[in-house]
């Protein structure tokens, strides 16, 4: 039974995803859009995860700045990596959904625009991490960028929303209860998937750091040790 004890989160997640998938496929179809509307059960939960993951990154960033504990940096980085995947998924799913419904892949809906920008903010954050070699410097710079971005994201959203509301009325409409329950189930399933992935990624990050430490023990060199006496002899009176 150890496998159940060690893998309970995975097992629960697979079960919830299964139920959510079944529900998404069998729940009554949307009256106006038909079956294509079912993509909402992927699109909306992905978008939710995109924002959740970035919030976790911000929390990790702030906690690192306070404590300087590398575990918080690992949390921020791992969450951002998962976040960028789900942000991409939300955008692609949204475009697939939009094409048959609106006749085009893209609309300038505020949440869509914000999600797209979030994708690039994530990419920049990860590119910054990749460009800094020293772990402490990387953590510090990434934490600052993570927090500055997090402060700006709500302003980004409100500015697009505001702009949009001036140009056309909001297209938000209420959805029926069975559909709403299915959507909620999808959100729960995706959140569990996030937790599983995050746990795995954190474990991987920890192992990477251990490996680095081991490598360091074996290959450590003291400054100056790589420079030896020159073998080129001097021949002053040749």
């Amino acid at each position, binding site marked *: 039974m150890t496998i159940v004890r060690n893998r309970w989160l995975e097992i629960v997640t697979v079960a919830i995803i299964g139920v959510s998938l079944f529900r998404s496929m069998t729940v009554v179809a949307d009256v106006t859009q038909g079956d294509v509307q079912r993509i909402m059960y992927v699109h909306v939960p992905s978008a939710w995860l995109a924002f959740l993951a970035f919030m976790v990154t911000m929390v990790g960033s702030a906690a690192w700045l306070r404590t300087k504990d590398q575990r918080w940096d690992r949390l921020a980085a791992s969450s951002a990596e998962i976040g960028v995947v789900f942000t991409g998924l939300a955008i692609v799913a949204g475009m697939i959904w939009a094409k048959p419904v609106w006749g085009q892949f893209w609309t300038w809906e505020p949440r869509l625009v914000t999600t797209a920008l979030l994708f690039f903010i994530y990419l920049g954050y990860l590119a910054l991490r990749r460009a800094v070699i020293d772990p402490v410097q990387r953590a510090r710079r990434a934490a600052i960028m993570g927090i500055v971005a997090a402060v700006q994201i709500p302003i980004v959203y409100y500015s697009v929303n505001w702009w949009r509301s001036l140009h056309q009325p909001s297209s938000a409409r209420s959805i029926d209860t069975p559909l709403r329950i299915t959507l909620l189930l999808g959100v729960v399933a995706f959140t569990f998937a996030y937790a599983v992935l995050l746990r795995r990624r954190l474990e991987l990050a920890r192992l990477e750091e251990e490996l680095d430490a081991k490598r360091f023990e074996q290959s450590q060199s*003291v400054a100056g040790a790589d420079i030896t006496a020159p073998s080129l002899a001097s021949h002053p009176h040749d």
Partner: protein
Amino acid sequence: MNGHEIVYLDDVGLRLGNTIILREAKLSLGPGEKVGLLGPNGSGKTTLLRIIATLLQPTSGSGAVLGAEIGTQDVYEIRNRIVMVGHLPGLWPELTLGENTELVARLSGRSPEVAADALAQVGLARASERRADQSSKGMLRRAELARALILEPTLLLLDEAHAGLDAEAIGMVDTIANRVVAGGGAVMLVSHEPDRLNVHRSVQLVDGTLEMVS
């Protein structure tokens, strides 16, 4: 630590990537002391100076500089009492030597006249209109020494203290260092020519630790 040291390092270690720059480095520098820092190329002398100048935080160990514990916010209060002349020139290449020196005076809240005076003292009065990127290494070095005259530091750190200087300028380095020492400050000089150092004692950086040199 007895509270009177200007620099006090206890088992300070620094690791950058897979390289250990320092391990368990101990150092104590009291008022009126002039100490030489020796060591082969790449042994971490410049890095050690930057740690002493509070510009770089060690990864382990503790210490204090001018009463401020390193790694704390207190270092912001004492930094303006330290002058470091590094191995790369701390000058803006697009500005003239005069402008660079004036900048030091202005940024430290002193009047620009002090700068002109200091420039004359290091023998650069006639070169003050010359851009830094049009000046020789020795001239840049002199312009940097003018900084020590303007700021009158309690702690003077000179990296490659004699590199690129003629006999006159080397005498000037000694004069400036002696002035700091006479005022109750401390000086640390890095050099590859121990005979020229003219110091009270020397320490050597070997395998990341500091050893006394007899």
